[in-house]
């Protein structure tokens, strides 16, 4: 039986805010694009598994109730499903796909993501993002928002680690430096300086506007298959999933012991690296979906890539941005890319594939063979870490 999971086809649309570009426009472009990129026939797709399109009930129904294989005439499709675990939805799509592949039900699974947020009234977006992950009894009455919640964590992070506002701002500068070189980013060609970050409006201390996420439209798709099949496709150089680990903290941030997710990064990465037969020193690139700058720091600490409390220093020294010795998050995180809802982590996996294939253009990391990808959902409820390599083991 053909086991393991490899990503063999990718497609993306540029992230932007453009209500003229519909959800289905994006969806069809990325589905067709990813299948063509994989070089297979549409009828070889055996399942379609999508991240839940958050706050878009019509598209949610279309996806959950089987429209995609219908519209695209996927004659070999055996099943469909949507997965929702906030920002870790894509991670769960990959895990569900792997189960179908491992059990012999599928050779190829299509994982498409689409989101349009620019057609929603700003008040609705605020309402949705203010309420979706928050406790209606123990957080919401006091005016907690996503930004407020992450401001609380960031303030404590700076207090405990001694990181300065300038060091924290350097994370956003580094992420935007990557994003400025990425044609898929809403901030393509738009790098920021430290002053740009520090002089932007204060949203919720210590987070400035530039350190918060811009909600945007976008999408992408992946075609995945088994290690064995992948090895025979193209030149055989694909992103092979080699290890995976995951941890749950809690829904409500104020009830957590692991305030900065650092222990979850540590435990999940250790599980993933162990399965892959690697240590953190074998990793060429770290792709961290955390949506807020402190995660780019605490993840490095949890991985053991830098000593505890020194994540922000690594960013401030330029080690994690372009040209650094510890490159992180070459697609710019959601801060640098534009946040595309619960399918946001699609962009992280796709960029992992680009880097392993050597197709990341100006952002290409030299000799990029092993990549660690971490995603989180809700307001940091979970931490899912995967190790991908350029060859199966």
């Amino acid at each position: 039986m053909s086991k393991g999971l490899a990503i063999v086809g990718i497609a993306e649309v540029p992230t932007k805010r453009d209500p003229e570009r519909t959800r289905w426009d994006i969806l069809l472009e990325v589905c067709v694009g990813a299948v063509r990129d994989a070089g297979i026939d549409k009828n070889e797709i055996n399942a379609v598994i999508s991240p839940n399109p958050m706050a878009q009930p019509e598209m949610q129904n279309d996806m959950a109730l089987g429209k995609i294989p219908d519209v695209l005439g996927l004659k070999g499709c055996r099943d469909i499903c949507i997965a929702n675990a906030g920002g870790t939805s894509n991670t769960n799509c990959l895990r569900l796909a792997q189960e179908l592949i491992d059990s012999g039900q599928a050779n190829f699974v299509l994982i498409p993501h689409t989101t349009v947020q620019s057609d929603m009234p700003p008040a609705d977006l605020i309402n949705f993002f203010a309420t979706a992950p928050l406790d209606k009894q123990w957080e919401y009455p006091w005016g907690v928002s996503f930004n407020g919640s992450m401001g609380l964590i960031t303030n404590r992070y700076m207090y405990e680690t001694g990181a300065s506002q300038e060091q924290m701002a350097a994370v956003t500068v580094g992420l935007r430096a990557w994003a400025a070189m990425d044609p898929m980013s809403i901030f393509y060609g738009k790098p920021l300086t430290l002053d740009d970050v520090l002089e932007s409006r204060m949203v919720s201390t210590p987070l400035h506007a530039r350190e918060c996420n811009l909600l945007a439209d976008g999408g992408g798709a992946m075609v995945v298959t088994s290690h064995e099949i992948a090895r025979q496709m193209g030149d055989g150089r694909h992103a092979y999933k080699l290890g995976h680990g995951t941890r749950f903290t809690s829904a409500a941030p104020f009830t957590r012991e692991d305030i900065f997710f650092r222990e979850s990064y540590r435990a999940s990465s250790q599980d993933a690296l162990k399965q892959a037969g690697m240590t953190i020193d074998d990793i060429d690139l770290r792709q961290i979906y955390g949506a807020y700058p402190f995660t780019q720091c605490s993840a490095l600490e949890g991985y053991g890539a830098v000593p505890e409390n020194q994540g922000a220093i690594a960013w401030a020294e330029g080690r994690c941005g372009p040209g650094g010795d510890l490159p992180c998050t070459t697609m710019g995180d959601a801060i640098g890319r534009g946040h595309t809802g619960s399918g946001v982590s699609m962009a992280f996996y796709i960029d992992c594939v680009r880097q392993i294939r050597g197709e990341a253009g100006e952002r290409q990391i030299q000799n990029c063979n092993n990549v660690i990808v971490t995603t989180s959902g809700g307001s940091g409820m979970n931490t899912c870490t995967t190790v991908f390599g350029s060859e199966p083991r």
Partner: protein
Amino acid sequence: MSNYQKPLPVIQPHSAAFWEGTRQHKLMIQHCRDCDSNIFYPRKHCPECWSENLDWIESSGKAKVFSFSVTYEGLEPMFQQDLPIILAWVDLPEGVRMCTNLLNCDPDEIEIGMEVDVVFQQATEDITIPYFTPSSPVV
């Protein structure tokens, strides 16, 4: 009639005693009679041992700021008149942490570790919301 515009807590049967307490200006913390845990937020089952044999103790209301964030924007219009809002996580001596707002203090004077006391503000006839304020007023 109250003209309170902000969202009211969505109360559950197992949290009703907390909100009955705040009406009487008492900060009540759930307590497990079987494993002796103090529990926040209130639940139907003790999250440590799943006991339903749960009771309530009154907190001193004297807390320490674990973290805070001053929110200037990005909230729904109903919060607009209160901006900036000082969000805080405060640690109670009963060993639990709660989310609240700090009132009557200058955002520039707040420090992590600062001592704060519970205060109560009536929102509607039925609902009184707990907030915290610096123990020694900052001059």
